[in-house]
């Protein structure tokens, strides 16, 4: 089975920074994987995703996507739509006038006809339960709605794997649940970066972490609960 993503010994330092953000990092993502990544802020998670997509070039190391080596922009370009990257800020990803336009953007670029793109877009919106949003203006949607539309826009390209960068940030519990249900219901591999243990635990099979610019796989890390004390503990309460 060819891995979808294969990073070997990737080193990346931001220009002007002292320490590398990614330090001889190895990562392999196979078809069927549903993996979460939990790590503190500033550990380089978003840089990792950008490196996979070829949006930033590492100083050393090798990248293979779908088995083929990736070194130049023209190699990355046709492969990007096969990996659906969901950005942290949905406003960065929804740049067309209406929802339908945004969801159809991917298919149109991939060569679909206007008719075909429109149909694909409608189908995806239907699948995510937001069919009524077709003609809505993107900047007027709520945070949760934008997230779903962004997901639709990415799914419309029929990617083989999703890369999600903090998909639940800024969402309320209900939308998180919807997102959770959608993801588990999809027949697609994904790699999710998130702070939220409950969410990641529900939708993924394994959890990785990042430390000192490298990936720590699930054998190396341990997720555990802490005991704590506070007043009024005997009354029903809820920790976030």
């Amino acid at each position, binding site marked *: 089975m060819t891995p979808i993503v294969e990073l070997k010994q990737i080193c990346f330092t931001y220009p002007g920074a002292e320490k590398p953000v990614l330090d001889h990092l190895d990562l392999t993502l196979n078809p069927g994987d549903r993996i979460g990544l939990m790590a503190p802020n500033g550990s380089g998670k978003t840089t990792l995703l950008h490196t996979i997509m070829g949006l930033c070039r590492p100083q050393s190391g090798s990248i293979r996507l779908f088995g083929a080596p990736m070194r130049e922009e023209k190699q990355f370009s046709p492969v990007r739509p096969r990996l659906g990257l969901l950005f942290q800020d949905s406003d960065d990803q929804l*740049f067309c006038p209406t929802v339908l336009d945004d969801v159809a953007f991917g298919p149109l670029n991939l060569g679909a006809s206007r008719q075909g793109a429109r149909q694909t877009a409608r189908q995806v919106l239907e699948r995510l339960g937001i069919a009524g949003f077709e003609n809505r203006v*993107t900047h007027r949607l709520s945070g949760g709605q934008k997230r779903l539309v962004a997901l639709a826009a990415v799914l419309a*390209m029929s990617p083989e794997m999703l890369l999600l960068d903090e998909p639940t940030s800024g969402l309320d519990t209900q939308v998180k649940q919807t997102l959770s249900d959608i993801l588990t219901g999809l027949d697609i591999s994904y790699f999710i970066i998130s702070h939220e243990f409950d969410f990641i635990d529900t939708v993924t099979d394994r959890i990785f972490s990042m430390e000192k610019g490298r990936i720590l796989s699930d054998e190396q890390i341990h997720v555990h609960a802490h005991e704590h004390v506070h007043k009024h503990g005997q009354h029903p309460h809820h920790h976030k």
Partner: protein
Amino acid sequence: MDNPFESGTSFLHGLDPRIRIMCAVFLSFAAALSHYPQVAGAYLILGMGLVRLGRISWQNLKPRVKPLLWFLVMIWIFLPLTFSQEIIANIGGLNLSMAGIRLSIMITLKSLAIVLMFTALIATMPMASLGKAMHQLHVPDKLVFLLLMTYRYVFVIQEEYLRLLRAARFRGFSPGTNLHSYRTYAYLAGMLFVRASMRARRVHQAMLCRGFDRRFYTLDVYSPNRWNLLFFIAMLGAGFGITLIDMLWMYS
């Protein structure tokens, strides 16, 4: 900063955006180039009629017309008193010029007419439709792309600005005519540009991730309406007719 006329169910809202754009361009120029107050007046009446057709309320129209009214007040103060031809009176050292008064009348009629026509015809469609219509009318792709993308992010950036300003206020910022205020506003404006530039980079990356191949596409959606052609002919006819009268008077 939203456009309250964008969506509506009036007759005008249902017409093909391309027709509306072409009529707006044609009628605006025709009105701008009229030579007689009666002609300009005719366009003003046409403008008022179109506003009616678009079911635009006076409430919504007021904030649009107000800055124009201020401008007209300035015109009426300056032109009759500074123009040098056809002096008809002298008020406390200042000459009153009939040419100035005449031009003021023309400007008033023309500008009001054009604002009304433009609002009724163009402001009554959402930006998405305007962009598509412009594309279909063969306006260069890059320009349409620019317009749509700029519009898309205006609201995002405005929110960012309001947040920054509020943060400054919470730290005791109180604007005045002093260097500190100007510097603060300069930094606010600067921050807007910085964030805009950084966001642009991310949006560009997002476009690349969805296979952007540097070409511009739209999903053409045509709304059939049998009144389209009739309206177009009616507007062209009215415009040509009024212009004809204008020209005949000029050359008689």
